[in-house]
């Protein structure tokens, strides 16, 4: 039914998609019981190099502490974070996170308000080589959703461009969500997926473009002015209406041979004024010559024009030779 080439193209496209969009998954499940209603900030993050979704360590602003009195229920929650990675970030880089979709199933009977935001942070390493979170680079605004318990939802947070303003080599990305907890229930939260879609950042494409441009420029420096000047040198004489006809002939020299002879100048720079020939002619004779040549030129032009007109009307021949 399908041509072989179409099937091959589809397979290649699918392979390409999977090749450039690696997906990692992590899973966590916990049970919590809520004694008092309150709001909780949960965060989930992954190092951009590690490709693993990990629960943030205790301590600091990114802490995710399993609340002993939590109530919020989630199931089959999936995060999609599109981010770039694998490149050391530099001052002024733009970091794009987009297409963040959270698919969740939320149990219980109460409506649950979820506020989602995403953020960038960076690591520094201690003496033991262990990473620890030192701060956030940037964070998006909270987007609040009102979801009904017991149903599945897909929530997409629109992307924003983050502008890195410092040098961070170890950047992670994550999603933080704020949930409203209701007292009186014990539920299970299951976080099944934490997927990074990465490799679409400006930086990678910019690096490739810079590299290609650098290779070409390094191989052969561009000099477009040279061609422009050469063309100008050719066109300018066509519009020249003066009568100066000086031509400067350069020196002719024998080059020096080390230990044998010095440089020898055979002829010095010679300037020839061809216009001087015409100045020596009697003026009336020169005037007659000029008129005759001008007439010849006009006749040639008229013949050329006639040839063009004849060609247009007859579609035969054309040009001054016809």
């Amino acid at each position: 039914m399908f041509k072989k080439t179409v099937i091959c193209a589809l397979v290649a496209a699918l392979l390409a998609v999977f090749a450039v969009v690696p997906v990692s998954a992590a899973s966590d499940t916990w049970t919590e019981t809520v004694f008092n209603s309150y709001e909780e900030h949960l965060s989930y993050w992954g190092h951009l190099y590690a490709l693993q979704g990990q629960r943030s360590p205790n301590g600091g602003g990114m802490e995710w502490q399993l609340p002993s009195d939590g109530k919020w229920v989630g199931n089959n929650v999936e995060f999609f974070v599109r981010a770039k990675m694998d490149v050391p970030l530099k001052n002024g880089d733009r970091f794009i996170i987009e297409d963040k979709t959270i698919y969740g199933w939320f149990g219980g009977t109460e409506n649950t308000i979820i506020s989602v935001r995403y953020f960038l942070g960076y690591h520094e390493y201690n003496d033991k080589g262990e990473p620890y979170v030192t701060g956030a680079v940037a964070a998006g605004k909270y987007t609040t959703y009102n979801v009904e318990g017991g149903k599945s939802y897909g929530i997409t947070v629109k992307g924003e461009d983050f502008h890195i303003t410092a040098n961070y080599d170890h950047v992670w990305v994550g999603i933080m969500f704020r949930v409203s907890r209701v007292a009186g229930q014990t539920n299970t939260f299951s976080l099944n997926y934490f997927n990074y879609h990465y490799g679409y950042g400006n930086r990678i494409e910019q690096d490739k473009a810079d590299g290609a441009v650098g290779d070409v420029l390094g191989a052969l420096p561009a000099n477009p002015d040279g061609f422009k000047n050469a063309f100008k040198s050719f066109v300018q004489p066509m519009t020249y209406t003066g009568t100066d006809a000086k031509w400067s002939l350069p020196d002719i020299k024998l080059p020096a041979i080390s230990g044998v002879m010095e440089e020898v100048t055979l002829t010095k720079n010679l300037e020839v004024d061809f216009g001087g020939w015409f100045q020596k002619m009697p003026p009336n004779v020169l005037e007659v010559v000029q008129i005759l040549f001008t007439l010849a030129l006009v006749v040639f032009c008229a013949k050329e024009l006639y040839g063009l007109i004849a060609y247009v009307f007859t579609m035969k021949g054309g040009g001054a030779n016809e």
Partner: protein
Amino acid sequence: MSDAVKWALLAATAVAIIGLICALPFVQFINVGEFTSMLNRLATLCGNAFTSARGIINNLLTPFGRTVLSGLLFYLFGKWAITMGIKVTAWVYHFIFK
């Protein structure tokens, strides 16, 4: 394959070949600056020669004739460029596409 696609492929190939040539490590073997400077001097020398030649011809023409000659030169050069373009196009079409 339509002729339009063939022309596109030919143009892409030409650009790729030029790109490959430009990507060769010329800098390691020749001084590009001196080479460019030499070409500039050559172009300047030729330009001066053309100007002098035009000056000689202008001595044989009235001021009106000089202006006419300028227009005629542009016409002839344009005609030559268009004719060459057509010839090259026809040559490529005949020997590559046919």
